[in-house]
């Protein structure tokens, strides 16, 4: 039995967008490919693939995969699933991620031909979409029949899901039978369930104090591995103060990331230099902003924001820091407020429930806020986050960052197919981002899993997926 903090909104890969929907849909469904620890695509339904020309990708399917209802997975299922998601009538939130696909063909049961509108290197990132049986692909309701390692036996909304091994799964069938997934929202109660042994695993990062306690329990194991989630401070560059690179630099160097990490995450993370973690195939080592409050003060002086009373209480200027009501987010806000105060920047912290905060961020109605990229895949994310045309609602450039150099590089990165050339382009992009600081990098969060010593064989994944359960068993 495992415990999650929140209920997945959908187990259907066409619709689920929240983290737990993705985690559980990944247990029930199989895609053409899936990411490895370096965010490179590795085979799943597809044994191999090739770009036969810049706009055509051919996938060769494995014939051993079967849906949970016993039917074999064929290219027609792949074709039907992709066509359904691409059809605007289904209103799938995944549609935009597949928008570069012009059409899909299934010339024989084990071959899928994907034709693109233009050369598009990140296309493989979209091939993790879980495949449904062709006759269910256009259902308006939730479809849970997939070809993943588990099948859904029963679901009690808000409470629990019961999963069992999918007999048609070819890669080492799971040994956990049944696998019960419970929703336990309270962190203390999740920990107590683990302590009592009624829950065998939880994978939601606990507060540092709770982590210490869990680690001290002899019958529990705390596993930590480097993660890919990137935490950062989003800055609104439409604000004249934050538009000045010296101010952004001052903010970056005024933060002592190591101590912030210890305070906020109990040290479960690594100070970040940029969006891509060191394990990522396109990562290029770069300079991390080093904690230097004296330099921060000089930068602010040079930018014209002199401290009106030296070490006195008056700040150079005030900014509003918006954050969510989550305890961890509030803790981070207070810590950053204290660090920026030492260089003369006063932060007014405002907490909002998530829907309101999200709307404000999208509408550019913020000055500073802490956000995170979870499960970073293809580095094309740089285009969506930093290209000048990608301001919401088109993309994620919420701070309104504009740089002709960044625009040119990120656009080239998505059309060059050669991996080596792409790596070079993204190295330049990372250097540019580190120089311009459109966002202030904080850290890459570690993946933390706490489980009982009876659960064996489970290895956490850097992006937090739960596929490791397919190889786990209870002693």
């Amino acid at each position, binding site marked *: 039995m495992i415990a999650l903090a*929140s*209920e997945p*909104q*959908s187990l259907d890969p066409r*619709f689920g*967008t929240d983290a737990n929907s993705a985690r559980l849909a990944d247990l029930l469904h199989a895609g053409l490919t899936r990411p490895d620890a370096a965010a490179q695509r590795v085979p799943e339904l597809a044994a191999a693939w090739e770009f036969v020309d810049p706009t055509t990708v051919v996938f060769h399917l494995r014939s051993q995969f079967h849906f949970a209802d016993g039917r074999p997975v064929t290219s027609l299922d792949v074709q039907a699933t992709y066509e359904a998601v691409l059809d*605007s009538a289904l*209103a799938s*939130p995944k*549609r*935009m*991620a597949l*928008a570069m696909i012009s059409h899909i063909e299934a010339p024989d049961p084990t071959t899928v031909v994907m034709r693109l509108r233009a050369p598009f290197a990140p296309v493989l990132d979209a091939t993790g979409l879980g495949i449904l049986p062709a006759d269910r692909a256009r259902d*308006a*309701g*939730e479809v849970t029949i997939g070809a993943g390692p588990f099948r859904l036996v029963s679901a*009690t*909304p*808000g*409470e*629990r899901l019961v999963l069992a091994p999918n007999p048609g799964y070819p890669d080492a069938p799971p040994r956990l039978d049944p696998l019960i997934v*419970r*929703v*336990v*929202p*309270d962190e*203390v*109660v999740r920990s*107590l*369930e683990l*302590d*009592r042994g*009624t829950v065998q695993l939880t994978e939601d990062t606990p507060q540092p104090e709770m982590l210490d306690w869990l680690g001290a329990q002899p019958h529990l194991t705390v596993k930590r591995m480097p993660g890919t989630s990137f935490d950062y401070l989003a800055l609104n560059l439409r604000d004249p103060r934050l538009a000045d690179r010296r101010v952004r630099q001052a903010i970056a160097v005024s933060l002592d990331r190591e101590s912030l990490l210890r305070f906020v995450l109990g040290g479960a993370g690594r100070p970040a230099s940029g969006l891509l973690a060191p394990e990522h195939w396109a990562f290029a080592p770069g300079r991390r902003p080093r904690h230097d409050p004296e330099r921060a003060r000089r930068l602010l002086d040079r930018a014209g924001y002199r401290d009106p009373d030296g070490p006195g209480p008056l700040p150079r200027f005030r900014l509003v820091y918006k954050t969510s009501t989550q305890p961890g987010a509030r803790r981070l806000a207070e810590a950053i407020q204290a660090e920026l105060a030492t260089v003369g920047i006063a932060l007014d912290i405002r907490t909002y*429930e*998530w*829907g*309101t905060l*999200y*709307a*404000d961020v*999208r*509408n550019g109605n913020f000055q500073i806020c802490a956000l995170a990229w979870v499960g970073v895949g293809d580095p094309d994310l740089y285009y*969506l986050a930093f290209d000048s045309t990608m301001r*919401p*609602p*088109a*993309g*994620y450039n919420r701070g309104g960052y504009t740089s002709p150099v960044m625009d040119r590089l990120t656009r080239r990165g998505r059309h060059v197919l050669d991996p080596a050339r792409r790596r070079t382009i993204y190295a330049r992009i990372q250097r540019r981002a580190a120089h311009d600081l459109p966002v202030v990098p904080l850290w890459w969060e570690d993946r933390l899993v706490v489980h009982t010593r009876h659960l064996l064989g489970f290895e956490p994944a850097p992006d937090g997926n739960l596929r490791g359960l397919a190889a786990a068993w209870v002693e």
Partner: protein
Amino acid sequence: MLRRVLRHVVLVVPTLLGVLTLVFAFLHLVPGDPVEIMLGESAAPSDVAALRHDLGLDRPLPAQYARFLVRVAHGDLGQSIAFRAPVTAVIGDRYPATLELAATAFLLALSLAIPLGVVAAARAGSMVDRLTRIASLAGACLPTFWLGPLLILGFSIGLGWLPVSGRGGVLHLVLPAVTLALGMLGVLVRLVRASMLEALGQDYVRTARAKGTPGWRVVTVHALRNALMPVATVAGLQAGALLAGAILTETIFAWPGLGRLVVEAISARDYPLVQGCVLTIGVSYVSVNLVTDLVYQAIDPRLRDAD
């Protein structure tokens, strides 16, 4: 009696209409767009517009409101935006859990509060009275977020008698029901005691004693009946609040009730689901109010005569 019930039922309509109007207005005033939350930031503007059209969110607010009311009148609460399922089905999945927890907690609190309050009043000033008052004050003051985990530590982790959380058999119900009931119990015990003390000082009680009526009969028949009126009022209000879902208790004990559902629906800006939940809560409140009114009449014959 029937007229009274009918009058209540007729009053339900404007009450619920008022509640729904306020909720509709507030939901649309707060920032946050359900379509953007549902489709995510990367959604194409054309997809956002298409879905907004499908959901009727592109219409003027009065038109959306009128459409909603017409649907409600036909028993159709619409589709949940977040769960992609009929609102009635989503609420139907959760409401039995809320009913189960609320009814158990309510009955537990009431069945303990009345005897404890009566004994405390009948033995006013004694050690029993003092202990009851201290315990009831503590019960009313202990916050759920502290009491819940404490009970889990004691009875689930320490003694291993009860499950930590979740919904299942009777054993799963004990800790959340006790947590909820203790808060109610503190208030009700003090109220029963105070009402009983007042009733025991009345002339008719002295008369009953003078006529030689046994002490227990004076307390339980003569005084208690009259002391129950304010208790029924407060208990009715508390029962209504319980039916709205006890968010903290449901969260702590992983209880899949309406309270948690409302919070999830508000976070996702799931307008139809929030409105459906509010309607359910409103109907629950009004129903409890009606029952309370009937209880008044059972307790006080003068109210029956007034009809």
